């Protein structure tokens, strides 16, 4: 997969919050039109990684290049360049609760691109249909939806303007298995049909296998492994092995401390 030009190029990315060194030198490249899945333990910095690429988190060190522009410097022009071609699904959905569902989905069309309301609404309803939501849902407020529905609305919002770069932070968390598969198909279709470049974060191995061209594992602030989804089962890396099979014992020791009364 090395023929395609590099779309996103992250080198030596570091980020700390106080004494918490979350990212300690992440190197990651994503070729144009490919789908990368990042796996890793809860709290390992996957969301921070995505937010750094979007310019929402300011990295301490390292470079992040999108189309050759270094966005780690966070100039307004670079941020605009990224935002204009990116769709992001936030882990917590982050829907605008003062707007109706369809206005959420059409937000960029309405206020970023200044399209007509009627046309934007049609497009929004179409995107809602793609994530399995009926047109009536468009008239509701986000607070009237279930968690999984909010996630799907957020996904519809991310894809509504056919962006070239897609970031999905746990797209299938909280969805039933069938709906998860629908969403997986949708992501695959976006990458294949539109040629979008995608980075997804997921804890769902079935989903990872389905949507990934390549999988990377983040552990203790660095990428410790990358490979194709087929290689997940015989990665030769004990940590990947433990993660994929979901065992409590192994080289990765989750920080669970026994409470002892002194």
């Amino acid at each position, binding site marked *: 997969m090395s023929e395609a030009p590099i779309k996103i190029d992250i080198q030596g990315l570091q980020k700390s919050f106080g004494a918490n060194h979350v990212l300690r030198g992440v190197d990651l490249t994503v070729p144009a039109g490919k789908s990368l899945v990042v796996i890793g333990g809860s709290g390992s910095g996957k969301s921070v990684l995505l*937010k750094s690429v*979007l*310019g*929402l988190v300011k990295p301490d060190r390292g470079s992040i290049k999108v189309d050759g522009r270094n966005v780690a410097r966070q100039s307004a022009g670079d*941020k*605009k360049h990224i*935002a*204009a071609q*990116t*769709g*992001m699904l*936030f882990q*917590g959905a*982050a*829907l*605008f*609760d*003062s707007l109706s569902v369809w206005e959420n989905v059409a*937000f*960029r069309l309405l*206020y*970023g*691109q*200044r399209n007509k309301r009627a046309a934007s609404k049609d497009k929004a309803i179409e995107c809602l249909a793609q994530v399995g939501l009926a047109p009536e849902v468009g008239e509701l407020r986000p607070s009237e939806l279930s968690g999984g529905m909010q996630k799907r609305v957020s996904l519809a*919002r991310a894809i509504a303007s056919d962006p070239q770069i897609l970031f999905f932070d746990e797209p299938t968390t909280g969805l039933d298995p069938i709906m998860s598969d629908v969403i997986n198909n949708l992501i695959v279709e976006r990458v294949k049909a539109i040629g979008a470049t995608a980075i997804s974060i997921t804890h769902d191995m079935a989903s990872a296998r389905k949507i990934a061209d390549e999988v990377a594992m983040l552990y203790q602030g660095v990428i410790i492994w990358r490979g194709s989804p087929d290689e997940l089962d015989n990665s030769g890396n004990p940590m990947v092995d433990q993660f994929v099979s979901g065992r409590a014992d192994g080289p990765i020791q989750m920080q669970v401390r026994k409470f002892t009364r002194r």
Partner: protein
Amino acid sequence: MNPIAAVGRLSLDVFGEVGRMTNFAMEGAFAAVTPPFFWRPFLHALARIGFASLPVVGLTALFTGGALALNIYEGSIFPDANAFIPQILGVSIVRELGPVLAALMVAGRCSSAMAAEIGAMRVTEQIDAMSTLSVNPFRYLVGPRVLATTIAMPLLVLTADIIGVYGGYLVSVHLLDMSASIYINTLADFISSEDVTSGLIKATVFGFLIAVTGCYYGYRSSGGATGVGNATRTAVVAAAVSIFAANYLLTSLFVDF
């Protein structure tokens, strides 16, 4: 910590905060008057801030006008105290009480609401989401609110002036047996257009301050619901204090010239 260092730190904090807020205010003013304009959030804000504040501002003005009439009547040392009522009452309401009281009521309603709303959007990543959708969240959230409040306040204060003076009229004419025509004529003789204009200029400045403090604390909030709660409380206090401070400054300007 040694006390001198503590005082130093405190004053640095205060100056730093004032500096950041001034910066925010200038950016807010710029966003309010330069394109891109966001008409929908603007009209929403105008309706919620301007129109929905009418009852509370009107009632405040009505009772204040009435109370003022009683006070002037009771407190006067002159035998025909009635004649002073419209004169003193009109000027106090139009120049001072109308703008300040209306601004405090609107600050209580709207600075808090803005801080809470924008703060909640900050801590639930809605502001981040907006910027990934190619819309500048500062311009979408702050610009329309600043513009709407700055436009709505003078209109509210004008209404408050009329209702306040009417409150005085009700008490004077129906309780203190003053003749309606004397009340109205004295009022017309003594209230100048400068009085009204100076009150409306104050109102405009107060409206701007209300929106800026509300948006500022909301926009910077962090730390979940607790952080939003803090932002809300601080916003109302800061709005009220800056209204009083600005009122003093503007009054001293208007008195001089």
